[in-house]
């Protein structure tokens, strides 16, 4: 059962009884995406939270010279969304698409708001999730400003242990803000050390 994966994820921070699980299950929308399929396009309003069951999503923007800037990957067992658009109700400046065939659960914002009322412990669950996201983001900003690319790559491997070997090099390079050629050199250096 696909739902088991998400309940296991939730059980890390809160305990749900059978009634609560049953209710939560009713708001989960299962979706399959083909490689390259867009889940959220720029200019659209983000009205969902996404949980990745399998595959991998990326959240990115594109600059004026066509260069892609990857903000984050969402591997299996990760939650993702465009929080800016989700919270403000304004059009998204990002694109979320599938790097490989991917399965997700979507939860509508309106349903999520009801869950907070019906099962208040979900407030705790998402507080912890958002806390972790803020910590990760500030670490990423700090390291992108000050840490050498090799350290940033090591941090990436640690953060994404299950996907770093499956994602094409160019996407990892974009996430790290370096050229694929430079990333190749770093990988060779690590392999030979």
């Amino acid at each position, binding site marked *: 059962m696909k739902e088991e994966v998400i309940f296991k994820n939730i059980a890390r921070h809160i305990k749900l009884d059978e009634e609560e699980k049953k209710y939560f299950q009713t708001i989960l929308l299962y979706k399959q995406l083909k490689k390259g399929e867009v889940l959220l396009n*720029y*200019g659209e309003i983000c009205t969902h939270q996404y949980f990745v069951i399998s595959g991998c999503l990326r959240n990115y*923007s594109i*600059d*004026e010279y*066509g260069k892609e800037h990857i903000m984050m990957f969402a591997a299996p067992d990760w939650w993702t969304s465009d929080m800016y658009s989700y919270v403000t109700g304004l059009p998204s400046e990002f694109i979320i698409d599938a790097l490989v065939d991917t399965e997700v659960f979507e939860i509508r914002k309106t349903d999520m708001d009801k869950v907070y009322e019906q099962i208040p412990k979900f407030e705790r669950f998402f507080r912890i999730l958002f806390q972790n996201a803020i910590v990760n983001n500030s670490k990423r900003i700090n390291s992108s400003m000050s840490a050498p690319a090799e350290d940033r790559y090591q941090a990436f491997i640690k953060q994404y242990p299950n996907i770093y070997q499956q994602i094409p090099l160019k996407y990892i390079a974009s996430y790290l803000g370096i050229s694929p050629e430079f990333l190749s050199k770093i990988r060779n250096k690590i392999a030979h050390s």
Partner: protein
Amino acid sequence: MKTRSVQQVTVATQVQMGKDFIYQPFPSHQLRQVDPFILLHHWGPYQFPANNDALALDSHPHRGFEPVTFIFSGEVWHRDTMGNNSIIKDGGVQWMTAGKGVLHSEMGTDEFHKKGGTLEIIQVWMNLPKRLKMTEPNYQGFQKDSIPVVNQYGGKVKIAVVSGKVDDTTGPIKSITGISAYTIYMDANSKASIPTNANKNAMLYMLDGSAIVNGKKIEQGRSAITFNNDGTEINIEASEGSKFLYLEGEELKEPVAQYGPFVMNTTEELHQAFEDFQSGKMGVLND
């Protein structure tokens, strides 16, 4: 002739573009656009040593507007899916009409990479009206010696006419929207007089120097000066050596939807542009 009153002076902010820092007076919070000009990027001046990797804008698409590069110093190697392969040196211009879609790359030249030197360029995005957004793509590249110069103030002011007309001198670029574009070089203690069309929007960008423009002191370089449409003349008094780019065009008054390298009228048209690019409809530019 009545002078145009200065509307606003906007100093460019620094923006990180990959590994480079560039200067962008607009779009910004202070100045969204100067219709029909929607973006101005000022690169440099950067001093590159020998064996450098200056300017590496690999193959990328555009649709719905005209990206135009003015080369003040250095060289830019342009290639595109129309088959153009063109190196333009300082004083020259690369004027691309992206129209319905084209891929191009803008790179430093092998010679510049090897020898090093100063690179200073400005890229301006000139919007196309709805009726021309899907026009056939085109590229016009001109070197400095093909761009006529109007001398003023005993030769202390040189106005290079890229497109449009100053007195009896006409620029080589054929603008499909009637854009006028001049680069203006002024020696210290000189005066220039730029004739403008009162019905069109006009702007000056001062790359460097110090000047008074229609009575307004421009305190620092990298400033965009916009004007009200209440006169036909712009007078510049330069107290030190100063460089300007003058742009003039008809206001489109159309909705602007821009994301990444595309400029259309609606979000749906932007999504279509991405689809067409990703499915190869804009062509493929091999390295």
